[in-house]
Structure formats: structure tokens, C-alpha cells
């Protein structure tokens, strides 16, 4: 799913993934379970958000960056 719009802001799909990370770092599998999105879409989306520096990889998980937190509020 396209998670970053041409103006650099997260799309609705992107926001869903960002909100899933608000409670802390999660694996793509956990994000897929929480959002109900298919795995391929979650993997592709998190990669895109990482490219836009809204999330970052932490081991096998992803977490919000300060820039990403600006869109959804700070990580819990």
C-alpha cells in the first residue's frame, strides 16, 4: 500500500501503520495482526515509512521516529 503521499505526508494507510506503533516497537507480523492488513502490504508499507524516516527498524521490529511521532503523538 502506498503509505507516503507525493507531498511527503503519510496517507491513510500509512497512518494506520504509524498508529499501530504508538504503543511501542512491533514486528511486521504484530502490525499485520493489529491492523488486519495483509503481510505483504505491511512489509512494503513499513519499508516505505522507514524510507521517509517516520519509522525505523529495531532488530526485527519497527518503531516510530520523532518525525513519525509528530503525526500520531508520542510513543507510549
Amino acid at each position, binding site marked *: 500500500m502506498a503509505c507516503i503521499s507525493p507531498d511527503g505526508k503519510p496517507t491513510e494507510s500509512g497512518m494506520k501503520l504509524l498508529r499501530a506503533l504508538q504503543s511501542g516497537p512491533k514486528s511486521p507480523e504484530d502490525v499485520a495482526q493489529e491492523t488486519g492488513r*495483509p503481510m*505483504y*502490504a505491511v512489509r*512494503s*508499507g513499513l519499508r516505505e515509512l522507514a524510507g521517509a524516516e517516520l519509522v525505523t527498524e529495531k532488530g526485527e521490529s519497527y518503531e516510530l521516529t520523532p518525525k513519525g511521532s509528530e503525526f500520531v503523538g508520542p510513543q507510549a
Partner: protein
Amino acid sequence: MEEVIRLPRLGEPAPDFEAPTTRGTIRLDDYKGSWLILFSHPADFTPVCTTEFMAFAQIYPELQKLGVELLGISVDSITSHIAWVRNIEEKLGVNIPFPIIADLNKEVAQLYGMVHPGQSKTETVRCVFVIDPNKVVRAMLYYPLTTGRNMDEILRLVEALQTTDKHGVATPANWRPDDMVIVPPPNTTESAEERLKQGYECADWYLCKKKL
């Protein structure tokens, strides 16, 4: 210099790719852990392809229940794909819920042997690759430009492969779910001797079926 045409082979890893799609950039790796049907069509805004896309959309829920994802591909642009799926939804009332690769430079098409110059020098033929959760190519179909594919067969094919993986059996001609399956044939003279005593439905020692 002679052009090298590559075709994937059954039982071997599916060629890796990263490609732009109508749902963002996607890699083959993104599908690891799921079954994937990668299928190509010759061109957007053409009649046979449109009927096929609607048919694929129709079986998508059933495929998802089986843990299978769909990924389309043609050499058309993202803009063309977007316009086409919007047109299908507006004019025909069918939503296309899966991504479509825009393979303008034919990179993925060449990896998968999708362009057959005897049919078209520029467009992909109608290919179907069934790729398992370990990214292995398990089945391939190559159909001509003129002939739309049969969704019943594609569903049947996936279910047969999954049944084989789950139960260690083969499936006979025209097999449907809940039909009898083929017991793997004996591979020693001793086991061949034993086979007819094992309670299967046998035409002979090498051709035995059972209910799952």
C-alpha cells in the same frame, strides 16, 4: 548476439524482484510466508484482460481464505493501471483489491519469461506463477493473448498443491477438493508386494487412491 530467454522452472526459487505497483513498491520477499499467484496480462483497457481481472477479483476472497495473495503485472504504466481499475469499478462495478506491477522496463517480465515474441514483441502473454510460502515456483501456466484463463482451474491447482504439501499425496486428473487422492507409489519390490494388502482402493500396486 543471441537473446537469452529465461523461464523459471518448477521446484526452483522464484526470481526475486522489487517493482512499482498500484499499492506502492513491492518485493517478492514481502510475500514470504504466504502463497502467491503472480499473473500477467497483455494490456490494460483490453477486453479479455478486463474479464480476467474481474474474475480474479471474484475469487480473491476464496484465495485469501486459503492464504493466497494475488499480484498482477503488465508492461503498462502505473497511471494506466490506476485509470483502468477505476474504469472497471465505475463501469463494471468491480473493485480490484490486489496490486498490479507496472513493468515498463520489462525487468520482471524478462525474469519470468513473460514476453513471447511469437505472440507479441512488446506485451506479456497470460502467465500464472503459483509460488509457495518458501518462494518456490510450484506451477506455471502460459496462455495466449486470445484466451482468457479459467479461475476454477487456478483455484483447483492451488488447493491441489496445498493438499499435496499437507498430506504428502498426489492428486489425480480432474481432482477436486474432497475427492480421493493418490497414494505415493511404492519404491521397492517389497513395498509393492505389501501395497495391495494395505486397504487402499487400487487398480494395481502402482495406482492406489485413498480418502483423506
